[in-house]
């Protein structure tokens, strides 16, 4: 039993850190790789993210218009989709996952670039922020055991949903219509109005909708948005993350991804 726990914890950590498989030889971060990345960036990413990486490309403003989200500003070092603690940089694997899978609603997945090309463009994207030169991001480990989906797990998850006050923004039913969201009080870091995610629509979850994705989002928060990190509350718990993830998934009629 104990061994089983240990094994699943190891598997979890692996999944959390690298939920997108990347097996191609990752090129070194060096000026040559960056230059190759720039060529790809200029013909693929520049239209939204802009020539200076500030998210001000010529097509960028039409994406969200006067509301969030706008294309990521790479120069600030603030990234939403990470496996790292709140306020930290994303790992290369995190960036790889976003480039590959895209962001539902806002960014297409670029699996059509080869893995090497994706690594090259990530090297270039990282060069926009000096923070990548001095900080070494480390993924948060997820302790705990995958609990089976069942009434007990869902009941515990529902209780956590209340205790964590998820309903404040996401609403009691998960429709993204909590009182703070309805008041229009939710803003991103640049002051743009931002919507609470409709939890009944997993296909629109920007950071992914698998149980692992949900736990990762709960642990890390989404930097630059009001979504906080619950890492201090979830770390060290055995099944809270899984229970809450199960419950969030149960709010939707959509089939599991």
């Amino acid at each position, binding site marked *: 039993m104990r061994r089983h726990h240990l094994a699943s914890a190891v598997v979890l950590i692996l999944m959390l850190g690298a939920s997108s498989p990347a097996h191609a030889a990752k090129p070194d971060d060096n000026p040559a790789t960056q230059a190759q990345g720039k060529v*790809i960036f*200029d*013909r*693929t990413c*520049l*239209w*939204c993210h*802009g*020539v*200076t990486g*500030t998210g*001000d*490309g*010529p*097509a*960028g*403003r*039409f*994406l*969200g*218009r*006067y*509301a969030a989200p706008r294309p990521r500003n790479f120069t600030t070092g603030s990234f939403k989709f990470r496996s790292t603690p709140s306020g930290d940089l994303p790992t290369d694997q995190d960036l790889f996952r976003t480039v590959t899978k*895209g962001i*539902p*609603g*806002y*960014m*297409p*997945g*670029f*699996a*059509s*670039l080869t893995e090497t090309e994706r690594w090259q463009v990530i090297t270039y994207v990282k060069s926009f922020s000096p923070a990548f030169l001095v900080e070494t991001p480390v993924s948060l480990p997820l302790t705990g055991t995958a609990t089976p989906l069942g009434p007990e797990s869902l009941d515990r998850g529902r209780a956590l949903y209340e205790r964590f006050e998820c309903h404040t923004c996401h609403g009691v039913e998960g429709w993204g219509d909590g009182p703070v969201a309805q008041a229009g009080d939710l803003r991103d870091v640049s002051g743009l109005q931002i919507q609470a995610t409709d939890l009944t629509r997993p*296909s629109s979850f920007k950071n992914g909708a698998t149980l692992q994705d949900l736990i990762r989002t709960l642990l890390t928060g989404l930097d630059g948005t009001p979504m906080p990190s619950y890492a201090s509350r979830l770390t060290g718990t055995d099944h809270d993350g899984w229970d809450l993830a199960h419950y969030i998934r149960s709010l939707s009629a959509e089939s599991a991804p």
Partner: protein
Amino acid sequence: MLRRIFILTVGTGILILIALSCLVLPNKAQAIPAFARKYDVNCTACHMAPPVLNTFGQRFLENGYQLPGTEDGGFTGKKKLGDVTLDDVGKYLAFRLVGNAVRNWSFQQQNPAGADAGVVENKTEFTFPENFVLFAGGTVAKNVGFMVELGHDVVAGETDVERGFVSFNNLGAHNLAHVRIGKFDPSAFYSVVTIRQQLNDIGESTSSGCTPYASCSLNRVGLGPGAFATKFYGLYDRSGSAISPFASTLYNSGGEMGIDVHGRPFGDSFLYQVGVLNGANENFGDTNKGKDVYAMLRYDYAKSDYFAVNFSGFIYQGNSNVQVQSHQDVNWNRYGISTRATYKMVDLYAAYSIDRINKVPTGVIGNFDATATGETIGMDTYVTNSTLLSLRYDNIDAGGMMDQRTSASFIGAKPNSTSAPTLPSLPAMTLTCGKPMEARPPRGIFETPFPPASISCSKEAPYASPSPC
């Protein structure tokens, strides 16, 4: 009238049409986005406001419906079933309804009085969506794209392939050559794309019972982009039907049969395009004794924050593509320049075209102006998160039969509300004013659901009009 010419009866004054349209119901349900579904993104990823593409959308189009800088046509959004890789049908089908749901016509003056058959003064009518358009678009395989646009005119009961082509992309090298074969919009890569219009397209009104190679009474002018319009009076297709001076045509027709090639082999800044068509006005019946050819060159600057600008110019050589009143073929050419700039959420565009009949046939010589020009200047901008304001100015300096021609200028404005970027638009108002050219018959169209007093564009309509518009 026994003289077979267009009669532009101007003495009765101007025609004013006020259409209280679409206050409640959408008049245009925009495309349900096939590509958005395939790539899991909002329309706004590619569209400034459908159908206007933003810079990313333009590059996607240029790349044959593949993400810019990639060649993903073979697998993205597809399922592999055995040895075939297929798109979900649901991911490449889309439809659009075009038309007015409710329209109030108020002819304050008729030209001549009561001339517009079937339309009486001050009439409110519910209308069925006037056009039903079915799209299918996507990729068949890596670097092979396709688009089919089937339009059904509900009122006339006709169905037509408006566009339908296959494209072979990235031939030779990435972005070296993309070939389109079929019926396509030649101007798709021009700075000002013909089908980008946000204003309601109001067609001209002619008298019924026109006979071949005879002019018809033109009761009111059409509102189309001036730069792209026919501009000539007294041109006929091979069956003798008069070609509307206001219809978009030649390079700017929106859909012609042929083959063309485009690419960016000289770096990212320059785009070339060359093509051959059966002939422009195929819809109208090009005589097609010879092929029409065209070439376009475009310069792009997009390497600045918030901002992109492009300039383009084309030459279109028509070959026996139209006839004049004396049943003689002529070669009709067009030369155009255009520019478009986007800054943050403002989209400005301008196009200017010169049309020439390069040899005036003896049958009409002396009564035929072989040169016509037109220009279109416009702006689309988001004034709030859900309101697109569109302004357009058009001018046609008409050519053709001197005893028929009528030049015209228009100004159109339209705030277009959408509750969400991906939902059908709810236009609040359209307004169009007409202004006559000097020493030429005045003509105009007004369409507005609001009390005209709330809009003042009297400078554009300096003649005595009961409307302050």
